[in-house]
C-alpha cells in the first residue's frame, strides 16, 4: 500500500511536537476525512530555523507532515511557499491514488503557518 519512504516517515516521524515560542502556527483540517494537522514555525531572518508538527490523521497524513517539515526546514519563507502537495508526494516515493488528498493537508498546513507568521509580523 504505502511506499517504504512513507513507512519510514510514519515509523520515525521527523520534527514531531510543538514549539513553545512559535513565530507562526498553522492548523488545517482535511474536509475529506476529518483529519487535522498543526505546524509550528520558528523563523529567523526569513529562514525557517525550526519546524514541528502535530497530526491527527492517517499514516499518509503523518508521513506527509513529517516530510513537509523536513523539506521546509532551512528554506526561506518564499522557497517554502513554493512547496506543493505534488512535491511532498514525490518526496515520499508516491502515494496511493486514494491517499493523494492527504498530501494537501501537509502543504496547506505549512502555508497556513507561514501566513500566520507573515500576518503577525505584518509582512
Amino acid at each position: 500500500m504505502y511506499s517504504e519512504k512513507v513507512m519510514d516517515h510514519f515509523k520515525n516521524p521527523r520534527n514531531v511536537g510543538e514549539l513553545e515560542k512559535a513565530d507562526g502556527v498553522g492548523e488545517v483540517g482535511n474536509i475529506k476525512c476529518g483529519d487535522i494537522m498543526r505546524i509550528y514555525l520558528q523563523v529567523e531572518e526569513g529562514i525557517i530555523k525550526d519546524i514541528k508538527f502535530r497530526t491527527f490523521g492517517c499514516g499518509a497524513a503523518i508521513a506527509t507532515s513529517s516530510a513537509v517539515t523536513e523539506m521546509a526546514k532551512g528554506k526561506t519563507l518564499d522557497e517554502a511557499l513554493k512547496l506543493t502537495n505534488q512535491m511532498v508526494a514525490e518526496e515520499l516515493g508516491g502515494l496511493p491514488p486514494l491517499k493523494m488528498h492527504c498530501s494537501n493537508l501537509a502543504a496547506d498546513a505549512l502555508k497556513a503557518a507561514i501566513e500566520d507568521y507573515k500576518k503577525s509580523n505584518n509582512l
Partner: protein
Amino acid sequence: MRRIYLDHAATTPISPKVLEAMLPFYNELFGNPSSIHGFGREVAIHVDKAREKVAKAIGAASPQEIYFTSGGTEADNLAIFGVIEALQNKGKHIITSAIEHHAVLDTCEALEKKGFEVTKLPVDENGVIDLEVLKKSIKDDTILITLMHANNEVGTIQPIEEVVKIAKEKGVYVHTDSVQTLGSIPVNVQELGVDLLSISAHKIYGPKGVGALYVKKGTKLKSLVFGGGQERKIRPGTENVAGIIGFGEAAEIATLSLADNERISKLRDKLIEGLLKIEDVKLNGHPINRLPGNVNVSIEYIEGEALLLSLDMEGIAASSGSACTSGSLDPSHVLMSMGLSHQTAHGSLRLTLGKGTTEEDIDYCLKVIPEVVHRLRSMSPLGKN
C-alpha cells in the same frame, strides 16, 4: 516477530479439516455435478451432502432450502432483489436498519433509486433497533424486513425473534444477515422464524468465495443471475464444488464447536477491561448482547488508520471504522448511526477474537496497545498530549 491475528470478523484462516475435505475435489473428483456420467454423478452426491450439512448447521427443515452463492454479499443481494422481483406487484416498501452491512444497505439504496421506498430504522447508542419503531414502520405495501442478526463492526446482536413476531402478524417476509453469527452464537432458522438468512463460509474457518442463502420452503424468490439449471435455477453457474464441500465441513465444525465461544468471550472481556483502563477510551456496541469475539473501542485523539499501521508494526492485525480506511469521505456508518461524533468514530479500533486466540495474545495486546496509543497521542494536536 510475534504476529497476532485479531481480525476474525474480516476473515478466518481455513481449518485444516476443511481444507483436507476440499482437496479431493480439485483433481480426483473434478467432474461437473450437472454431468450425467460417473465423474459428475459422484461429485453431485458430495455437493448434496454438503448441502445437508449446511442445512443442519442452521436448523433448516430441508437441504432444499439451501442455495449456494459466491458469498455473503451475493446471498444478501439475492435475498433482497429476489424477494423484490417476486413481490413487486404486492408492494414497494422495504425496512432495514441504518447499521447494516453494505451488502444490504447499498442494495436497498440501489432499489431506492429505482423507485422503491426504504425505511432505515435508527439504532440506540448500543446499536439496537427499537421494536416499537419497527412496528410503526410497517405499512400495507411493506414486502420485506431485512435486519442483520449481529453487526460486523460493533458486535451488537439484534432481537430477530421479536422482529419476526411483529413481521408475521403483518405477513411480511424477514431476511437476516447471519454472516457474523454462524459459529459464534446459535443460529437456528426455525427458532428465529426468518424466511431468508445469509451466511458465508470464510467467516467460519471455511474458504472465501462461497456462501449460502436459506430460503424457507414456500417463500417467493426470483433469481438474480440467469443461466443453467444449477441451484434449481435460483443461482445458476457451475458450482464452486471444492468451496461448497469446504463450507459444508466448516458449517458442521462451527456448530459442534460453539462451546469454544465461552472461552473466547472471557478473553474478550479481559481485553475490553484492559483497554478501558486507558484514558479516554470508550466501548462501542452493546455491553452484554454482543458477539463473543468482538471488541470495539473508540480511542480519542488518534486516528484509526495510523493506529492500525502502528499495531501492525507490532504484529497485531486489527481493523477500524476510520474514514481514512473507508475509501469514502465518512467514517463508519455504524458508529455514526450510534451517535458517535465524526472524530470519535474516526478513532475506533476493532479487535475480533477467534479460535486461535490465546490468553497470551490478549496479554500482549494489553501491553502493546497502551504504548502505541500513547505514542500516537503524543503526535496529535488533540487532547492533552
